[in-house]
């Protein structure tokens, strides 16, 4: 579920464009930060997490 927290229904994208972070941080730095972040996001989620969530789900079902 992907939501853009910056826009509200009915508002045009241009009116709520997130200009201020770009004003504060140069493009090259912003791009590197986002790329660093998305690199990790694209990694497969380790099995430990799946196991943990499965445990929680099972506990919930069993309750």
């Amino acid at each position, binding site marked *: 579920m992907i939501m853009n927290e*910056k826009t509200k229904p009915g508002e045009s994208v241009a009116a709520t464009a*997130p200009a201020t972070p770009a004003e504060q941080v140069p493009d090259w*730095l912003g791009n590197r*930060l986002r790329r*660093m972040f998305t690199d*990790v*996001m694209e*990694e497969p989620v380790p099995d*430990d997490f799946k196991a943990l969530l499965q445990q929680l789900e099972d506990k*919930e079902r069993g309750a």
Partner: protein
Amino acid sequence: MNARDIFLEQVTALLPALRAFGRSLCGDPARADDLVQDTVLKAWTNREQFQSGSNLKAWLFTILRNCYYSELRHRKFEIEDPDGVCAAQVAISPDHDAKLHLRDLSRALQHLPPDQREALILVCATGLSYEEAADVCQVAVGTIKSRIARARDRLVELLGEDAAQVTGAIPVPTMTDSEQISTQRSGVS
């Protein structure tokens, strides 16, 4: 499907973003994943406190950064110098330190104080607004902005003046507004 199944489903969908946020905070992938595990457990334990419809990502990020800070307090020191570079330069002037010119952004981030690091990451990498970042960090919007400015200055220093050329970025911004918006969006989970 009941409300709790949906909650677990939504938390699962946010795991990549949580792992990325955790790693950008503490630098070490294994520690970051431990933090995320703690976060998921705490979120689950406190799920009644979360109002469905409000911002789950921000709520989870808040739990994660609280776990991070309480771990720092327990350790009573901050690992800001993972490679021992600063320790090795004890007698060197600040000017020399400024010329470290780290190529690795995540290592450079670890040289920032955690409050500056988290402000910068929340707004510029995870795509939260200033207001949302302020809520997560429990400070005023103005504080977030000044932390980002200081983080920016320090990173520019650490990464070196040639960093823009290294990444192939063009000195004069040429992205149109719509291109910038779509770049920003692609950084949001």
